[in-house]
Each structure stands twice: as structure tokens, then as C-alpha cells.
């Protein structure tokens, strides 16, 4: 199933939201910006390729702006 390109507006909204938090689950992002979760997932995917966000595995997987959360001390 081809999902097509992500919506640029949603990508912006994701980035804007992530700037306000340390990290978030994509479900939370979707709720916060009022978009469908599937669309947010797609936006996050592209943003990850663009090196703007990254996935963090901290007992469950979160999304954060790239480099915002560091390695454990």
C-alpha cells in the first residue's frame, strides 16, 4: 500500500509541537495537533529521513526533535 508523501503542513505542526515538549508518542502528537495519527506517522517518517526528528526507545518508543534527548549518563 503506497501511502504517498506526507503533508507539509502536518510536518510543520509536528515540529512545532515537538519544540514544546521533550518527547512524545505519535498518538499524543496527533491528539495535540488535531490530526489523524496515520498522517502524523507519515510526517514523522519523512522528518526522520530529513534528520529533523528521531525515534527514542525509552521503554516505549517516543519521537523527539533530533538531538534533544542525549545518551544516558
Amino acid at each position: 500500500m503506497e501511502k504517498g508523501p506526507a503533508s507539509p503542513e502536518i510536518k510543520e505542526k509536528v515540529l512545532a509541537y515537538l519544540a514544546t515538549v521533550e518527547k512524545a508518542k505519535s498518538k499524543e502528537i496527533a491528539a495535540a495537533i488535531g490530526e489523524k495519527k496515520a498522517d502524523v506517522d507519515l510526517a514523522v517518517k519523512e522528518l526522520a529521513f530529513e534528520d529533523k526528528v528521531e525515534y527514542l526507545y525509552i521503554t516505549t518508543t517516543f519521537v523527539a526533535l533530533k538531538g534533544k534527548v542525549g545518551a544516558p549518563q
Partner: protein
Amino acid sequence: MSEKKTPQLDELEKGQWPSFVTEIRKAAAKNPAAEDLLGLLERSYEEKKGHWKHGGIVGVKGYGGGVIGRYTDLPEEYPNLAEFHTIRLNQPSGWFYTTKSLRTICDIWEKYGSGLTNLHGSTGDIILLGTTTENIQPAFDEFSDAGFDLGGSGSDLRTPSCCVGPARCEHACYDTLDACHNITNEFQDELHRPMWPYKFKIKFSGCANDCTASIARSDCSIIGTWRDTLRIDQDAVKAYVQEGLDIQGAVCDKCPTRALKFDYKKNELNVIAEECTRCMHCINVMPKAIRPGQEKGATILLGGKSTIVQSAFMAWVIVPFMKMEDDYEELKDLLRRIWEWWDENGKTRERIGETIYRLGMGKFLREVGLPPVPQMVFRPRANPYVFWQQDEINK
């Protein structure tokens, strides 16, 4: 190289079973991280505790999983273990390899990693144990060029795996290798970009022997079966009698539903079709004489997981019989509906089985659109606490 003493580990090089210590030592001969690992492990053996910190965030561009960050808590003493991450490579269906492909993996891993591996991880991946943050991306790039890709980790679809199936087993009721490969490729996004409440595992077994232990180890367990009647070759039955097999005792008496009748006089074995639950026992004992039926497919079970935290769950039947054909569209469609429901309803770190247990199977079935059938339960509920829907009551 190393001069450090490892008296405890040395003890584990004795004995008849091949030794993992010997393996680490082999790697240590060429790789300083592997060498430090010997020292660190000896220390753990002395102190009876591990020396690894909580995982950190490392990865490959565009991927949200497939790498497990690992750092020792004694970086001063074991500097080569300051970063010692794991890469999970998606194994080929059925864990089949050419020596060429395995050698390629070894070569790349020699270059970028400790030279230590697990063949395989419990989920099924090729586990490459120990590399640095810096080396992850270049290692991935080379593996990718060589035709390999990352497996899953985090809150995503985990690397599916399957039994040897039709490649080498006479019992396979569907093509487990093809199904595993097809589903894995279909859901690359789900595998590589974690976005769910928690992990989700799929395992494919070709028959009810369940050689991948899927019912215990996967959220979705796909077990081959048949809808018609098992097939008995009476000549082969007679041959088994000749060989001295106690058909009554070893086969009929152990059939859970007593569906098999052995006629001593004619040396004939017959099955009461509607009684057979396709448990595989008789076929296992007499593979030359008994075979699955011809209308083959799979039973889909959901919810398996291990103990943490709500207790272990075994997967339970949600579709008694599904044909495994047409590019698995029916299965894919079902998986999508299940994931959507779980994503909507699951709490963070809640496996699908736990979500259904918490919210009720009725709600799940209604919302995912699966018809309730008695095959879903060992027995109906003992309590009368039924939820009625608005359209079922009298206003």
C-alpha cells in the same frame, strides 16, 4: 593481547557443550571491545551483577528501531565497552543461508563490530553484539548493500519469523516462508518506525506442532491447519503394524478426542472427521500413513506474550480458519484493523492481549468486525455480567 585473568570464565571453557567463553575469546583475539567484554563478564561473575547501563538512543537514519543502545557503567575500566550497541538484522525466512551470505555478514561485522553475534536472537533476528555509535550507520550501509535490512525494536512490529515449513517439512499447511517474507515486506513501515503503544510480534507455524512456539511468543500467532479431513493411507498403516507400532496404544488412545478407530482385524485405521481437532498427534507418530487434509489454511490467534506485568498470556483463537492465499490480503487487512483498534485503545506499554483483556473481547470483536464463534473460547463465561448494546435492548 590480554593479560587479564578470568579464572571464573575459564571454568566455562571446560565440559562437552561448545563454550560461549571460547567464542568471546576468539573474538577478543582480534577485537578490543570483545577483549574488554571478557574482563567485564569476569567481573560480573565475581560480583554477581551486570554492568550495563540503561539503553540509550542510537540508530540509523530513517529508522526508529533495529539498534539497541548499550553502555557499560564502568567506562573508565572498560573503555572499549563505553559504547557496545546491538544491531538487529532481519533474518531470511526460515533461517536459511548460503555460506556466501553468512560470510558477507561476518566480513562486515569484522570491520564495524566486535565480531560477536547471536545466531539468532529470541525473536529471530541476526543479533550483532557490540558496536559503537559512530559505526552504526556505516555498518548499516554495507549490510544494506549486501541485501540485508534492520529488524524491529521498540514499539513497533517486531521481526516476524516462521518455521521451516514447506521447505523441509511434510506437515506444512501453508507456505510459512512466503507468508513471513510477504508480511515482513508489506509492513516495513510498521517494522521500522515504531508508533504503537508497545511491541507487536508475529510468528508463522505451518501446523499445530507450532515449531516457532508462536502461541506463547507472539502477539499474533498464525498456525497452519485444514478444514476437511486428514488423509489416511491404509497400506502405510499396515506397514506400521508390520514394524510393530502399537497403533491402539500410541496413537488412538492418545488422540485427545478419541477420533481414531483402529480395526484390529482389517488393520485399518479410520477417523471420525468431525471429532478430530487437528492436534497433529497421530500425524506425528505415523507421518508415512497420515497427512493433513487438502483444504488448507491457518488459524489466527492473538494476544500471546510473556509474564511482565499482567501475567503471561497465550494467544487465543480469533479466526478459526483463514485461507492463506491471494497475497495474504485477508490477513493484512485484519492486521491493519487490529493495529488501528489497538493504537486507538491501548495504553502505553500495553500489549494487544492486555488491551483486549482490559476492555473485553466483545468490544474488540465488535469494533474490529470479527464474528464471534465458539472456537474462540474453551468454554463460555461463568458469570452473567453481559454488556448489552443500545440496539439490543427495548427502549
